[in-house]
């Protein structure tokens, strides 16, 4: 079995190296066949590992020692348990679907082989991240997925927007990693090891420790550590205020928006916090912090999604909002619900992105929904799968998103009842986001697929071969089959909730402190999938989601002229939303501009004027000047020297004489 563990990440790595290093030597067909074949190997291996874990065989062991220094041993190793096995399955499956989809989406792109290399490399990195048994390797995977994300956002490297977006994404993530690294350093310092199992085992004994960050203020060690670690999660999982990179990352090709910026990489933070539950559970402050950050993200990003016109950006902001739900769940100690939502979200968000990509292919790379409309008769498969995706995204029963989202809201509610600080605010945000979610999900479907056809068909030369301007038509099978395969779990995955969330599925891989009894209580109240659906009809979240969906229906199908009127009437609010609350402008001005200004000032004043100008060249000038003065004394005329000598003798004599008197 241990060889199989290795096979899961190494197969995609081999594919990445092969198609990457030989990208100009091999044909497109070879590149995609090899990488996809290796992805299938990896997926099958992951499935076997998954089954093995379900049978109760977990594993924790080192592969090799990366470095030893002092008492610290840094190792590369695997921890295979329910948590990692679940992630492995999701990552490999979605990645495989995206690999297949890419054949259709990228088939004309000159960087075809390179693209396959990158997505395989990404899969490898992500697998190393989730399979890790220690903090260091987690950080390795963490940064490696960041690197591949950087490369893929900037895949079309001649586009100014793309290369701006990838730099921004990398730097914002680095801000998160900055906190993450400090958190890891604290862990090593106090626990003496970076091995998960050993750290978690010691956690309770260190719960009472405090450190003084500011003199005179003793803070709980675990609170500080957990918040620092969570800052890493905020970067990678795009939580407020480090969310700014994710919408821009849509500059990358759509398959990677689905794979990296929706289904897998951005959920790394969620996975990480779940993995660290034995630490987070010991700090209520950290949990409340997580809860509030998640709440802010979920509500305010959902609002932005309501007014966007770019089809990918709607999905991107919806992703931010959904990630906020997961983060909220973490803060409410509902790790299993967070992980469950992570899994269902991976499926339905991949559907939405890949569906959006299918629309974009059909529209010849037009992403503006204002130029779509009525597409459902041209793209029936895409329409149907996207409808499923949107339905699930809106959290309406009986699709997957409903179960996970509803559980999260219930968990936040339970936390509120239990008096968890911040839970009341979180609950309000969650309810607001449900309503907004219902609206933007269906707005997307209605706007793009229903109503008047707003695209330009150019009937005069409407031959498909000419590319631009023909009537849209359904994408090829390599695109639609992944869509269908991903839509199936988007429908059904939720029905597993009884086992995954309320059962003992995650076992010991997740730890919940006894005082956080919310999930246990929800489990008692759970009586099966059908009762849960029926019960939901009477609850507030359902009504709100339905209200959102209904208003989308009214605005975009019944009265399609109304949105423009509303936009004009609510100009102020719309402007704030279109401006994304001004974060980008502020960051550009304050951080980017500030750093450049400071750097320029330090350089010109510190280095050039003071150090070089005053001290270095100044001392050279002083030496030069004094030597010119001193040079005057060495005139070379004997009578000058004789004169000086006589004066000197006179002076000496007079001194001596006056001394003897």
């Amino acid at each position, binding site marked *: 079995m241990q060889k199989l563990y290795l096979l899961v990440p190494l197969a995609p790595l081999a594919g990445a190296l092969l198609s990457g290093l030989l990208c100009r030597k091999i044909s497109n067909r070879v590149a995609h066949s090899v990488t996809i074949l290796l992805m299938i190997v990896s997926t099958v291996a992951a499935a076997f590992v998954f089954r093995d874990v379900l049978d109760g065989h977990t594993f924790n062991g080192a592969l090799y020692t990366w470095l030893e*220094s002092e008492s610290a041993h840094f190792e590369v190793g695997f921890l295979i348990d329910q948590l990692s096995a679940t992630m492995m399955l999701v990552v490999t499956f979605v990645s495989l679907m995206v690999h297949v989809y890419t054949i259709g989406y990228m088939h004309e792109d000159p960087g075809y082989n390179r693209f396959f290399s990158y997505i395989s490399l990404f899969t490898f990195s992500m697998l190393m991240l989730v399979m890790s048994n220690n903090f260091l390797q987690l950080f390795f995977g963490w940064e490696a997925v960041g690197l591949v994300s950087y490369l893929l956002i900037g895949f079309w*490297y001649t586009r100014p927007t793309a290369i701006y977006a990838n730099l921004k994404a990398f730097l914002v993530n680095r801000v998160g990693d900055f906190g993450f*690294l400090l958190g890891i350093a604290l862990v090593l310092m106090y626990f003496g090891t970076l091995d998960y199992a050993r750290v978690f085992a010691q956690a309770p004994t260190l719960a009472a420790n405090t450190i003084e*960050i500011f003199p005179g203020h003793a803070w709980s060690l675990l609170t500080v550590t957990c918040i620092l670690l969570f800052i890493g999660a905020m970067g990678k999982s795009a939580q407020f205020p480090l969310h700014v990179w994710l919408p821009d990352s849509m500059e990358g090709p759509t398959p990677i928006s689905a794979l990296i910026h929706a289904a897998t990489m951005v959920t790394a933070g969620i996975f990480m916090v779940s993995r660290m539950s034995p630490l987070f559970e010991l700090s209520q402050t950290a949990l409340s912090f997580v809860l509030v950050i998640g709440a802010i993200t979920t509500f305010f990003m959902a609002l932005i999604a309501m007014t966007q016109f770019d089809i990918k950006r709607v999905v991107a902001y919806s992703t931010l909002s959904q990630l906020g739900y997961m983060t909220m769940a973490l803060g409410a100690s509902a790790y299993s619900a967070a992980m469950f939502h992570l899994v269902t979200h991976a499926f339905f968000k991949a559907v939405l992105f890949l569906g959006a990509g299918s629309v974009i292919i059909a529209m010849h790379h037009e992403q503006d929904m204002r130029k779509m409309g009525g597409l459902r008769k041209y793209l029936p498969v895409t329409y149907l799968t996207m409808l499923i995706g949107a339905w699930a995204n809106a959290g309406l029963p009986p699709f997957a998103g409903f179960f996970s989202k509803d559980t999260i809201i219930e968990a936040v509610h339970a936390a509120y009842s239990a008096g968890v600080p911040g839970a009341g605010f979180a609950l309000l945000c969650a309810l607001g986001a449900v309503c907004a979610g219902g609206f933007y999900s269906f707005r997307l479907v209605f706007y793009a697929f229903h109503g008047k056809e707003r695209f330009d068909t150019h009937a005069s030369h409407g031959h498909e071969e000419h590319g631009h301007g023909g009537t849209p038509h359904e994408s090829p099978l390599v695109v639609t089959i992944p869509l269908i395969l991903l839509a199936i779990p988007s429908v059904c995955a939720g029905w597993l909730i009884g086992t995954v969330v309320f059962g003992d599925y995650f076992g010991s891989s997740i730890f919940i402190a006894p005082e956080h009894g919310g999930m246990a209580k929800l489990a008692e109240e759970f009586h099966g999938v059908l009762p849960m659906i029926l019960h939901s009809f009477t609850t507030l979240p359902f009504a709100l989601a339905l209200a959102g969906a209904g208003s989308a229906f009214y605005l975009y199908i019944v009265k399609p002229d109304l949105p423009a009127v509303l936009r004009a009437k609510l100009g102020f609010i719309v402007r704030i939303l279109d401006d994304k609350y001004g974060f980008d402008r502020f960051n550009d001005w304050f951080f980017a501009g500030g750093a450049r200004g400071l750097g320029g000032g*330090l350089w010109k004043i510190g280095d050039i004027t003071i150090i070089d100008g005053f001290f270095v060249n100044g001392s050279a000038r002083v030496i030069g000047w004094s030597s010119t003065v001193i040079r005057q004394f060495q005139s070379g005329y004997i009578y000058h020297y004789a004169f000086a000598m006589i004066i000197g003798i006179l002076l000496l004599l007079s001194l001596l004489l006056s001394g003897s008197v």
Partner: protein
Amino acid sequence: MNLPILSLVIWTPIFAGLAVLFIGDRNPRAARIIALLGSIAGLLVALPLWCLFDIKTPEFQFVESAPWIAAFNVNYHVGIDGMSLLLILLNCITTVLVIIAGWEVIKERVSQYMAAFLILSGLMNGVFCALDALLFYVFFEATLIPMFIIIGVWGGPNRVYAAVKFFLYTLMGSLLSLVALIYLYNAAGGSFSLLHFYDLPLTLNVQIAIFSAFMLAFAVKVPMWPVHTWLPDAHVEAPTGGSVVLAAVMLKLGGYGFLRLSLPITPDASHELAGFVIALSLLAVVYIGLVALVQADMKKLIAYSSISHMGFVTLGIFIFSVQGIEGAILQMISHGFISAAMFLCVGVLYDRMHTRMIADYGGVVNRMPVFAALFMLFAMANAGLPGTSGFVGEWLVILATMKVSFWYAVLGATTLIFGAAYTLWMYKRVVFGEIANPHVAELNDLSRREFFILAVLALFVLVMGLYPAPFGAVLHESVNEILRLAAPGRKLLIGL
């Protein structure tokens, strides 16, 4: 072992250099080939050191000793520990690469160019081996001459200013250390042996005076803020090869000096003044990181980035822990590979376009995809990406710093952000985008020679990043020994 391996390591390149000088420029091709063979021979004689090195002993190994100036009890006394070993290998590898890098680029005074690098290489090996303080000083100062010539002869338009600044700056810095060494010689009863100096009882005030003298010499070399301003000028004017050796090996003389001389000879002063050095190091990381951000000249940017990265070396050293010092040494080795590669990458562009200004580039990837890929790897390594060597040293130093102070670690870790910002922003403006101008449109991708050099460095960067354990294993005992010698109070106690 009867074979004087260290002498071979020191003198093989020097004699090869003299041989090349003797051939002269009548036959440049012969000069190049002899130089290459000489540098390879220099590497080959150093390889046995790695194979035969015993990682289990803190003692100096491969020791040779012979009287040199008997009247003053000056000895040709050489020997190495793990730190020296890694630096010698780095130096030998760099020399081979630099000779190859100058193969076609240097067209004038070929033999002298090649000879300067070979001799410099031998002299620096001498610094890393010397166990006699005067021998150390002679090698240390002698390295200035070839580098002065390299910058002054094959440099850019403003080369004379840069060369003189480089020479005077570093010479001024180290003069006081000669005074300190002479004081120690007298105190030790007429011996220049470093081993004697290590056990010499010294009062705190004397230690502080000696430490300050050493500090000035090594701080200029590293270079530390605020005595760093010679470096950007020197780099900008130096030919590519000069920049490579300067950044990859020569700066390490400073870090090496701190560990070989300052810490063991003046342990109490080192501890006393550690806060000061740490403050300067952190200032280098933050201040210089910001300054690097606004540079318009690629070489200047990389020069500033070097200063910032070397800040981690001095930071790690003055933490006084195994992790800190091992991190510092690994950072030196890694920076050797990465900065060499970065300067070579700029050199590749400069040879084609004859400009170093970022604004003159844009869209290079369209014409040079292979170069862009390798440059990306080195840029990421420069930004400290895990999996590359750039991460290893910084990681250890940050871990060690955390144990001293949370806020030091916070300041140190800002390199994660600054390093990525200045490196990748430059990369973006140079490599990505549409082809910016007709000159870029005419660029050709790497030649086989250029590819070979960069590929070798890429290999080292990756191997050290993915499996640094062997590099660390060489260091453990040596670092323990340095820390034992640097223990506070050791020398004061002997004095009682």
